[in-house]
Structures are given as C-alpha cells and as structure tokens.
C-alpha cells in the first residue's frame, strides 16, 4: 500500500486534524465525534445543514463545510457510516431554533445511523428533518437494495439547500428544495482501478489490466458490469448515455454538468472528459448552463470518474450560483 498513513486507525482523525489546522478561522473540530463544523454555527436565523457518511470521499463532506454549504459534517471511518452517536451529538451541537436538516446518502448504514439519531434528537425536542440523496443510476433493479445510492450529485443538493438556508428558508422549504434538486440529478461512475482503504492495506477489488467497472459505487461496490478499457470517448459514452436516458434529459434541457474525479485521476483527464461530454450533450440539443470539473466525491485513490447532470430551472440555477466558501479552496 503506497499511501501517506501513520497508524491506519488514526487516518481519519489525523486528516481531520489537518483540515482544522488549515482552516483555523472558519472551522471547529470536535475530535470525539469526528465533527468538523463552522465556527459561527449554529446561527439563530438559519437552519443548520449536516451531512455524515463515511470518510474516504473527500472533499465530501468534511471539506464542504462553510458559508453557503454545510454547517457541520461528522463522518464515520473510511467507508463506514458514522456511529449513531456522532450524528446525535452533532445535531445537538448544531441545534438552531430554526432546526437541523440532515442530508443522508442513501445507504443502509447511513440511513440507520441517521434515523436512530434523529429519533433521539426529536425526543429531546429538536426540530430535525432528514433528506435522502440517491442520484446513482447504476443500480437498476432496486428490489433487493435500499434503492439508489447517493454519490457525487449530493454536491448539488448541499449547494442548493445551503444557499437557501443562508437566505433564511425554513425546514419545510429546505426539504422541498433538496428533494427537488435530488429529483432532477443523475450520476454514473466508472472505475479504471480499485481503491485501497488504509486499514485493509490492499486493493478492495481486482480489475485486470484492460478491465474497468462500469457503474462502480463510491465504496468500490460493483456497478452494472465489467467492461473493457477503451478510448475516452467510448468510456464516457458508457456512463453519459445511462445518465441521460434515466431522467431522461432531452433536447432543449439546460443542465449543470459535473465531471467528478474518483481520487486517482488527474484533472487533465477530467477536463478532457468534460470537453467531450459538453460536446456530446450539445449534439443532443442539451445546453450546459453550469460546469463542474474536479474532485467532489471521491473513493480514496480510485482512478476513474463520474458524470452528473442536473436539470436546471431558474430557482436551481440561482441557488447553485449563490456565493459559498468551504474548507477545500485554492487561495
């Protein structure tokens, strides 16, 4: 395992420590609950937005805490939903008179932790609402699963409810906005290589020299099928087609287009993919109104990428364009 790690058990705490030290003016770190929160949260005049999920997806979600985005994030260990306690303690610490909105990517463990925690919090008189995000189109037959997974499209839900919360929207309104964005957001990913969790020390799954995983999950879960390595255009089509077909997106639509890197793919390749996707959408009469290229929701060091489309309307576009400031930054 070629990684910068000390003791694997300390991987997440040491990362969180780094995030806190790099953002001393804006973020507070509460080690007991892996909690990264805004220094100015909770605010009386604003619903607090919280997201949990496992670690290993950075910048999601500990680095998307900040003005216009999350008020706090309490991740579990690598790829593990946070213990219920983390969520409960986070909700208590971020309790605003206007309430707390919990954003949850739709996985069994995350659902359970957040459901148990919000029951507890409500019992103590907190106003809590939960919103499930499930943008991953790769899982078609969901009879036997909890349904679609939440992946990179999560970013758009966070951004929209974050902006609306900043404007003073109440809990009901935020749930409406979040559900609306989630309902027009679709994602699919593709792995070129597996990822290596620090505690495991070896790749989570195996892929042959010329094999790829189409529809891969952000915890390395299998997708629709194994495929063969091909040109960037062909690989892109493998994930763009199902995303377009799913909502479906059609000629005349105005969209946000995100090319998200899964951790090990350099941005040169992501921009190459972006250009091709933009063009392929234009060929279908779909206009890109907002573009996003980079790492938004990763799977440790996995090489690969996902495509997300969001159908824009005036309200969504306005919220996505609103100013925001988060832990991950350039300057």
């Amino acid at each position: 395992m070629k990684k910068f790690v000390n003791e694997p058990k300390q991987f997440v705490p040491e990362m969180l420590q780094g995030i806190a030290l790099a953002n001393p003016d804006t973020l507070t770190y509460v080690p007991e609950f892996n909690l990264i929160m805004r220094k100015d949260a909770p605010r009386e005049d604003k619903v607090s937005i919280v997201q949990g999920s496992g670690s290993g997806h950075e910048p999601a979600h500990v680095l998307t805490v900040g003005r216009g985005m999350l008020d706090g994030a309490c991740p579990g260990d690598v790829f593990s939903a946070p213990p219920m306690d983390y969520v409960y303690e986070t909700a208590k610490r971020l309790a605003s008179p206007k309430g707390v909105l919990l954003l949850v990517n739709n996985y069994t463990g995350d659902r359970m932790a957040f459901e148990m925690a919000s029951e507890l919090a409500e019992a103590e008189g907190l106003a809590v609402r939960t919103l499930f995000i499930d943008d991953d189109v790769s899982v078609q037959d969901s009879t036997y699963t909890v349904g679609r997974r939440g992946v990179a499209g999560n970013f758009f839900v966070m951004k929209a409810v974050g902006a609306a919360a900043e404007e003073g929207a109440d809990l009901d309104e935020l749930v409406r906005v979040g559900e609306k964005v989630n309902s027009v957001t679709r994602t699919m990913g593709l792995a070129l290589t597996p990822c290596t969790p620090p505690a495991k020390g070896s790749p989570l799954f195996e892929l042959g020299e010329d094999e790829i995983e189409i529809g891969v999950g952000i915890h390395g879960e299998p997708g629709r099928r194994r495929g063969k390595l091909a040109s960037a255009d062909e690989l892109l089509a493998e994930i763009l087609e199902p995303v377009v077909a799913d909502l479906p997106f059609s000629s005349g639509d105005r969209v946000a287009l995100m090319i998200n890197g899964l951790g090990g793919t350099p941005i040169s390749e992501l921009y190459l993919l972006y250009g091709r996707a933009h063009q392929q959408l234009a060929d279908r009469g779909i206009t890109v109104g907002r573009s996003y290229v980079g790492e938004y929701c990763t799977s440790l060091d996995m090489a690969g990428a996902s495509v997300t489309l969001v159908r824009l309307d005036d309200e969504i576009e306005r919220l996505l364009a609103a100013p925001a400031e988060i832990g991950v930054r350039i300057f």
Partner: protein
Amino acid sequence: MTTARLADVEFVVRSIARTCLANEKEFGELDAVVGDGDFGYSLARGFEIVDSGWDSFDRTDIGTFLQKIAVTITSRIGGTSGPIWGTAFLRAAAQVKGQTTLSGDDVVRMLRAAIEGIKQRGASDVGDKTLLDALVPTTDAIEAAIAAGAPAAGAPAADVLARAAAVAREAADATTTMQARRGRAAYTGERSIGSPDAGAVAVAVITERLAAEWATRAPAPA
C-alpha cells in the same frame, strides 16, 4: 436446572469482543469480496472499547450490564454493523431488565428479541444473505437443545454450545450460494453468489469460540 449468572454473561460478552478483535482482518476481507471491506474494522473499533473499558460497565444486574454494552457498541461502531449489533444487544438487554440470573428460556428469549431487532432495523429477513442466516438457525438449535433438557450453564451447557457452533458454521457456509438482498453486497446482484456473508461467518466464528472456551471460563459458583 443450573442457571447462568453475571459471570457467565461477562464471559460471553468478553469472548465476543475478543473474537471480533482477533478476527478484524479476516472479517474485513470477507466483507471486501462483495462489500466494502470495513466490517472487521467497524466491529473491532467498537469491541476494543468494550474490552478496554471492561471494568467500567455498570454491573448492577445482567440487564443493566448488557444495556451499557449496547450503548457502547451503538455509539462506537460505524457502518451498518453499529445499528444492527447495537440494536441486537439493546433488545436482548431489555428482555432481562433487573435479572441477576438467566434460565435457558431467558437466553432463547434474548436471542429471539435480538433477531427481531435486527430484522426491524435492517428491514431484512432470513434468506437475504446476512448475519440473520446464521443467527436464526443457531438460535433454533439452542432452543431445541434446551427444550431437550440441557441446562443453560454448567458442564452440559458446553454440549448446547457445541451443537450451536456446528449449526452456525453450517449455516454460515450455506450463505455462499445465496444472493445478497441487503447491505452493500446487494448491489452486486448475482455476483454476490459464491462467497459467504461476512456477518454470518462472524456469528459462526463467535459461536465456535464460545463453545471452545466455555469449559475454561471462571466457573460459576454452584
């Protein structure tokens, strides 16, 4: 009929904890086959607190003791296993509130309550390729053995456990041919066939260890 006491319960809990610690890597690798590989790690992080804080848990009675263990597990284990195992311990504890001894029937009642808790929390059932597929037949075997007259503790309890261990292992092995319908493994669809469920194997390994070590536990006063 001999009854189980706090010391026996302590032995069982500590044995579970240590088994999970000793098998962190193995359990993780089982989960990596079609899941995400964190199962061993998650359990170990919770049970290591159980093990290291061992003397600090309130031992007023068996119910209280198990409830404290349950709270620790729930608050320390992430992933699906935190809520699942936490709920199991919590429901088991609730069955024996205030009790300082357990009959064989108490033990079966606790196991049944734990199973119901898991089913509810996980929206899952036997046949979904989860730990339930080991836990339910094992519980059935224990119930049958007790009904057949074996005591809940004392030397003959070893026989009950030996029987349970055999059934648990067989049931865990049998999950190999099943298709996962719950948890992350469910996303793999048919690809989940061919390897056993990590949770079910954990149940087998724990039961085997309990059976193997029961004789060596600090003997309960007659």
